[in-house]
């Protein structure tokens, strides 16, 4: 048989169309809400109407006894504990239904079951929790002052953890020509995936397992955590992630509702479902991004950064979430605030503050969005102080390509790239010179335009060496993948992480194609099911392309050896004379396809010699990068804005992203990731904010109040790629799924400040709502009049 002509490249680097779109674009995905079991009941949670209080009594109308369950019913169910090993960390235990106290508005108090969700809500309306209200901690800066009400009385204060990255600043302070001090604040947000959190659970008698279908990013971790709460063997629990409509971190934890449902299905012996609705999400899951920074920076007369001293507060909410804990965010602030810059002295103190708000959860980019906002605004402040273009000051401070690989001031190992080149390309693409001319000429409509930049690094695929230091319940290690050739010669891949929009069914098939030459159409990905896949910490921290990609490549290589062994025999060629090409085993001008190899192994073993590898056509292989401190993708974002000083409106006239994600497995998927992230970053920059009143009530409980960018608010984002392969990963790929969401608040705010510079206005708080901007404009006018 002749070798067919090489088809169009479908391996690593190809713009292969997404396999999963066949069902997604036809509305045929299967989400938690699409699953229904016979006899299934629906659950509505009664949630705390108060931010802080002591529960006196929960009153259930007699008519609904047996349909309503509160903490008193959940005998033997443990709370959620996510302890950090960092010294001084104070432990919170989150009861899965409030016990004794309520600590945030929206905290689950009871669950009500009925045939339909509407009827379950009818019951929930009649359940009354009598709660003695306590003063609520709404502002993290006041929560750490003496006399603040205590969220967890036994602590004696409201601090989960304080950390200090120490350094000697005296030398730079004494010789610096320039000192700038700024205070920055970023608002609390919701993650708002299109599909809310949801779970449906039943008990499978055949295998004596609780089967939890849940909208999750990490089925194996949920299983481990759930087994702990229920005091059960893990083998008695199976967790399945069906299609997941976005996660962004909100689905990267064990949630109290999952534990409640697992208990409930055992208690009732009925399948039960809970589907988070939008209002529940806005109220009970406003859980990310809230930071406060006080920063002093020292620089020389050229704007060369010499040192940085920071105090950062993170509003960590009421409890520590499993597995990431309440300290990940602030600890990350301390280690990544220096960003992509090289300077000599650094000190950062962080405080994870416990407040009466939902527990903080790492959202796309985790602390990076806040850190980038603080650092990039400081760079611009220095530039203004020394009278230079902000991009020039950035350029002289970025780690140069010649220094790569580079260990930065907090010990981060940057794995290559040309940061200044990404900035230079962005400066060029947004055309700063043209902007300056246009600013001098003025806009015909009276608006003010401005240009802003932000450069960042994104650490992805963090490994053991990064995570063990934080001592949280989950430390990632080796990633595994299974590869199985079916009797008809198609390939099944099995991985333990789970896609919530990452297109892994496509990209991992491309990896298999790269190794085995098999058509991606003949490759299926099995993922998201603890019964069918190797253990994995899941999909988080921009790790799947590196970790699952590396594991699938290794598994395919090992499977390829087995295929070659059988193929060589069929071709009557020595095994060292055959190779795999285009889904076939080739020896000279002869070849045999995978189908024949597989059929021989499974169905016609009489044709095989006795000494054939008995492992067959299925392997599980592990992978860990050569250096596991993480990949560092990076980018520069450049924004051109027009500011309407009459209305406080901000229009994005142009937006450029120059991104280096190492070798891209599928550039089209990467562009999708960048655009989606950028939309969320624009939300952080301009719209998204969960305000609270003095009593801790969330004030944006509908999408009429909690604004997110829509199609009309999205600019035409121009993406330019650079490709510097990582020396440490299988194909040189780097994690980059979060990056788009990191820089927009910084780039846009810098652009707005550029536009308003003549008016003496410098915005330092996100989001830049019209109200916030107009208040600053009015204040500036009053100052000068």
């Amino acid at each position, binding site marked *: 048989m002749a070798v067919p002509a090489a088809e169009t490249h479908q391996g690593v680097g190809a713009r292969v169309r997404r396999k999963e779109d066949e069902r997604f674009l036809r509305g045929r995905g299967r989400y938690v809400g699409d699953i229904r079991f016979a006899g299934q009941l629906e659950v509505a949670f009664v949630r705390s109407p108060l931010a802080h209080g002591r529960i006196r009594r929960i009153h259930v109308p007699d008519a609904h006894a047996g349909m309503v369950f509160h903490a008193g019913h959940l005998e033997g169910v443990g709370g959620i504990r996510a302890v950090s090993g960092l010294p001084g960390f104070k432990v919170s235990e989150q009861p899965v239904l409030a016990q004794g106290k309520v600590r945030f508005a929206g905290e689950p108090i009871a669950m009500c079951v009925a045939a339909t969700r509407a009827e379950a809500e009818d019951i929930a309306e009649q359940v009354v929790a009598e709660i003695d209200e306590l003063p609520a901690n709404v502002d993290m800066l006041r929560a750490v002052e003496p006399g603040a009400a205590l969220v967890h009385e036994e602590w004696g204060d409201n601090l989960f953890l304080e950390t200090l990255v120490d350094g000697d600043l005296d030398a730079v302070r004494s010789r610096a020509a320039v000192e700038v001090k700024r205070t920055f604040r970023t608002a609390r947000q919701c993650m708002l995936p299109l599909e809310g959190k949801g779970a449906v659970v039943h008990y499978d008698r055949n295998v004596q397992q609780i089967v939890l279908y849940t909208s999750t990013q990490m089925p194996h971790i949920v299983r481990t955590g759930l087994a702990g709460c229920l005091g059960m063997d893990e083998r008695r629990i199976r967790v399945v992630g069906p299609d997941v409509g976005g996660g962004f971190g909100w689905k990267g934890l064990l949630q109290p509702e999952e534990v409640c449902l697992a208990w409930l299905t055992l208690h009732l012996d009925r399948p039960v479902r809970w589907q988070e609705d939008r*209002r529940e999400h806005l109220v009970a899951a406003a859980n990310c991004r809230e930071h406060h920074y006080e920063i002093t920076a020292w620089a020389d007369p050229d704007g060369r950064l010499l040192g940085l001293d920071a105090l950062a507060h993170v509003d960590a909410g009421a409890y520590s979430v499993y597995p990431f804990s309440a300290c990940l965010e602030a600890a990350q602030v301390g280690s990544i605030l220096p960003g992509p810059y090289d300077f000599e002295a650094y000190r950062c103190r962080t405080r994870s503050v416990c407040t009466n708000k939902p527990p903080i959860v790492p959202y796309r980019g985790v602390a990076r969005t806040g850190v980038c906002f603080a650092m990039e605004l400081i760079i611009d402040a220095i530039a203004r102080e020394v009278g230079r273009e902000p991009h020039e000051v950035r350029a002289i401070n970025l780690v140069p390509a010649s220094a790569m690989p580079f260990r930065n001031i907090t010990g981060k190992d940057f794995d290559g790239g040309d940061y200044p080149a990404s900035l230079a390309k962005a400066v060029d693409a947004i055309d700063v010179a043209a902007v300056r001319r246009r600013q001098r000429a003025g806009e015909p409509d009276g608006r003010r335009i401005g240009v802003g930049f932000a450069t960042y690094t994104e650490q992805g695929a963090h490994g053991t060496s990064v995570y063990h230091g934080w001592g949280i319940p989950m430390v990632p290690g080796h990633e595994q993948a299974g590869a199985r050739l079916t009797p008809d010669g198609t390939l099944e891949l099995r991985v333990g992480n789970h896609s919530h929009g990452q297109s892994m069914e496509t990209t991992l098939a491309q990896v298999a194609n790269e190794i085995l030459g098999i058509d991606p159409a003949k490759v299926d990905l099995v993922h998201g099911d603890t019964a069918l896949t190797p253990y994995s910490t899941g999909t988080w921290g921009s790790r799947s392309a590196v970790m699952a990609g590396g594991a699938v490549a290794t598994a395919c290589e090992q499977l390829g050896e087995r295929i070659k062994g059988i193929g060589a025999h069929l071709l009557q060629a020595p095994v060292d004379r055959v190779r795999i090409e285009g889904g076939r085993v080739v020896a000279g001008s002869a070849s045999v396809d995978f189908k024949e190899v597989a059929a021989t192994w499974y169905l016609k073993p009489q044709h095989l010699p006795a000494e054939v590898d008995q492992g067959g056509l299925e392997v599980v292989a592990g992978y860990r990068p050569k250096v596991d401190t993480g990949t560092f993708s990076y980018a520069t974002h450049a924004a051109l804005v027009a500011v309407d000083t*009459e209305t*406080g409106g901000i229009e994005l006239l142009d937006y450029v992203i120059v991104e280096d994600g190492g070798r891209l497995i599928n550039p089209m998927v990467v562009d999708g990731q960048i655009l989606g992230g950028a939309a969320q970053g624009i939300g952080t920059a301009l719209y998204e904010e969960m305000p609270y009143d003095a009593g801790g009530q969330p004030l944006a409980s509908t999408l009429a109040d909690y*604004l997110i960018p*829509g199609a009309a608010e999205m600019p035409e984002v121009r993406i330019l790629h650079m490709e510097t392969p990582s020396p440490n990963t299988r194909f040189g790929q780097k994690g980059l799924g979060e990056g788009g969401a990191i820089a927009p608040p910084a780039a846009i705010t810098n652009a707005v400040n550029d536009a308003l510079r003549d008016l003496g206005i410098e915005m330092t708080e996100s989001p830049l709502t*019209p109200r916030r901007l107009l208040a600053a404009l009015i204040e500036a006018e009053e100052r000068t009049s």
Partner: protein
Amino acid sequence: VKAAAFDYARAETLEQAAGLLQQDGARIMAGCQSLGPMLNMRLAQPALLVDVNHCKGGRRAEVEGEVVVLGACVTHAMIEDGRVPEVGDRALARVAAGIAYRAIRTRGTIGGSLAHADPAGDWPTALAALGAEVEVVAAGGGRRRIAVADLVEGAFETLLRRDEVIETVRVPRLSPEGRFGYHKLSSRVGELSEGLCAVLRDPGRDVCRIVVGATDGKPYVVEDATTIVDDPGGIPELVKAAGLGHDPVHARLHAAAIRRALAELDRP
């Protein structure tokens, strides 16, 4: 968020609908674009929903002399698309095109919007400026006309009696030199307005009227606005007079909306 249980009745005529409204807890349902979310969030828990979408004549649209008459169930999208007669200067179409999102406009109705009387809604302000009236029908078949400027009494409150239903909206046509200016400010496309102003300058009919919307209650009408139209310097005073001056940020947004609505009069 699921609606509490309610009964549903589909009215064949508006008289019949008005009769059903006499029942306790009855509420009318037209396009359901405001009521729907209120039901789901249980902010509204009616005992009976009276569906008027299928009533005869609900989507009529015709010119009666100097007045365009629109059935109460004419949708924003029908107006936006020019599927109904215009009053002049594309006034109705321009207002309709800016209401919320297209999906909402395909179901939301002009009559429902007026009866809902949201101060930040478009039609109460725009139609008051255009000098429109509504004709309402009561349970016994009795009819009366109410000026839109009077219809809205306060936030979500109208003069409609319990058994009255809006049947038509009657909008006077502009003279050839008539100009309509309209501007709303919202923090995002499709959101409710934070600053809203409509102005009609129609020398042919001796009308010069400004209506300021997005107030705390009813739209603020200046029947003779000649002075401000000629000299926008009076805008801050107007904002104060409309009771919108206390918060400087808010006042600035209202002033900007008024200034831009006036500027629209002179657009090419």
